[in-house]
């Protein structure tokens, strides 16, 4: 059926002729090209810029560094002020029993001493 230029319906015959003239071969290759270009531009389109990645890591990084610094200073200061006590505390078990203030009889016995015996020795000491 002939369609008048005044007709408000689609002119199928003209449409098909124009489609044949304008249609391109190989849409698949075109689609692949577009998607490849989109992939190349992924940082612009989907991703984030490198400075945004760094700034995202900056805050936790600073907090971790500050915590480490505080811990280091605390350990260093405590080491300076209490070094003598800690050395004595470490040395006690290695010292001879007499020097540590414990009766040598307690260590010389082959059997564990009775509680009363230990208390008597300690009180007597």
């Amino acid at each position: 059926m002939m369609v008048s230029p005044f007709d408000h319906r689609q002119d199928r015959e003209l449409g098909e002729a124009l489609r044949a003239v304008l249609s391109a071969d190989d849409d698949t290759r075109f689609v692949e090209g577009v998607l490849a270009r989109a992939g190349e531009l992924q940082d612009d389109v989907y991703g984030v810029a490198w400075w945004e990645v760094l700034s995202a890591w900056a805050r936790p990084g600073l907090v971790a560094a500050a915590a480490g610094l505080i811990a280091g200073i605390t350990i260093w200061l405590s080491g300076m002020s209490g070094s003598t006590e800690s050395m004595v505390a470490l040395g006690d078990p290695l010292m001879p029993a007499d020097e540590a203030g414990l009766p040598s009889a307690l260590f010389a016995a082959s059997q564990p001493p009775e509680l009363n015996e230990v208390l008597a020795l300690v009180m007597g000491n």
Partner: protein
Amino acid sequence: MEDAELAALAHAGDREAFGELVRRFAAQARRVARAVLGSDADADDAAQDAFLAALRNLGRYDPTRPFGPWLMRIVANAATDRRRRQKVRTAEQISPQTPSPGPRPDQVALRLEFHSALKAALQSLPERRRIAVVLFDVEGYSHQEIAEVLNIPVGTVRSDVFHARRALRSVLAEWKNPKEEIV
């Protein structure tokens, strides 16, 4: 899945959804770009630019409206911009087509000649009329949708389609009667 849903997914970073949109609209976008640009290579470049521009601007797409006209507006703009930038108009190309085993060589030659004449008639039209008639008669868009694509009143679209049809119909009639089979 609807175009608007795919657009929302693509906007959220779903590349598969964007790929599906490109597959759906590739042929249409290439035809509209070809209606504006004489060179097929330029038309494909413009269509590609349009898809990438659409991807970047998916946030501006209103999902309550059809996706096709929104995209076609970008395609038409990309093609028009490219055409304006062209300093030297490229010679019209006849796309190389391998003769299929069906029709005889003389029929193939006639078809190519007819296509060339129709394409020349299309290219002789003002750009807006070309886009309007292709969107209406080839792609099936409504006058209202084309008005949105071209940012012109609906009445102007009707007028453009009418004038374009009249010019193209004369070429069609010239070729149709003696060479009925070539269309």
